[in-house]
């Protein structure tokens, strides 16, 4: 039970710090570092299916709240990506494409969104990779401490 509580606490800390980091880190063309999406991809690669889906729903809810998106916009995308990555043979292949796909998903829901969708697509690739380069090792280290693998 102590291990489960530690994992829950880690998930809560990641959500809070991820939301703060997304708001505070610099943005280009309205695109920032997708810390929460990357964290949910990490969970899809490493945690149990139930934990990965629960984390994806929670991370999506936080993303919806801080970006003032319509309810379930990010929740549905994060969950779909987590499920697809979880059952994919190469889950890490989702890292470079997940964030650009999220931009397209947002554009479907809000065609009048700020900034050009093409610029957002271009910018989202390096931002997604940069976020993964930091989030994966950090969460990997923290995950080893609380035995996140499932």
């Amino acid at each position: 039970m102590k291990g489960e509580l530690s994992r829950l606490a880690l998930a809560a800390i990641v959500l809070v710090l991820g939301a703060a980091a997304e708001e505070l880190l610099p943005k280009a063309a309205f695109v920032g570092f997708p810390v929460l999406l990357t964290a949910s991809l990490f969970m899809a690669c490493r945690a149990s299916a139930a934990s990965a889906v629960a984390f994806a729903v929670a991370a999506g809810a936080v993303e919806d709240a801080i970006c003032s998106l319509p309810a379930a916009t990010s929740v549905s995308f994060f969950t779909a990506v987590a499920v697809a990555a979880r059952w994919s043979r190469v889950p890490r292949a989702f890292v470079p494409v997940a964030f650009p796909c999220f931009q397209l998903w947002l554009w479907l829901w809000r065609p009048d969104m700020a900034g050009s969708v093409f610029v957002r697509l271009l910018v989202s690739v390096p931002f997604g990779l940069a976020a993964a380069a930091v989030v994966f090792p950090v969460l990997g280290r923290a995950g080893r401490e609380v035995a996140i693998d499932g």
Partner: protein
Amino acid sequence: MKARTTGTLAVAVLAAAGVLALVFWRGGAVDAAYPAEKAARSFWRGAAARLSGAWRGARAGAENVRLRREVATLAMAMDDLRRAEEENDRLRKALGYQERAGGGWVAAEVLSRGGGAASTRRTIRVGKGRSSGVRPGAVVRVPEGLVGVVSEVSAKTSEVLLITDPSRKVSCTVEGDGRVTGILCGGTDDLLVLRHLDARAEVPPRSMVLTSGLGGVFPAGIPVGTFVRHPRESKTPLREGEVLPAVDFTALEDVFIRSER
């Protein structure tokens, strides 16, 4: 074994409750991140203030004295204004005019720009919310001019939709010989677009653009920017122009929100 299963179940229920709370209580998610944001923001502001203080040395002391005098002068001006406002209220009552909306301006620190990693609107997040009397739809400005309107509120923070966002329309008047009105339809941080101007009206360049008060969201007379030019002359009687914003949206540090208190 049984105790361990019960414990695991309890944690699972706790996790499910947490996930559901995040899904249905959006303000909670935003407020949870607020302390970390506030701490980071305060750290950087404090460090910048110390560095600038060390760099400016004696000049900072002189500026401090000048600012103290200015604050004292403004306090006296405020006192005069309060008396004038009371007199105004008495006279409005005597004439049977509708009472003006009460409330005051709440100073709020800008925490961040434009939501999370995937913001779709031009917004800023500020560090005052429902607990400070801020409500959705409240007008946000700085001394230089109009900033935007509060779009979402949590207990500790508010999201402000900037007037640069195309979804935020503002009815405006251009100062000049006649009353020329137009609708501000967003733009960029450097240039705003004013549409539906009457093509027959002559607007001299560098005229002041103010809120007109029509539409009921923004009070009349708040500066929006300076009219620059008509970018394209059309054959229709309505045309559009460009406005240089009065506010530097890239350097906002503190804003003032109209509160109901």
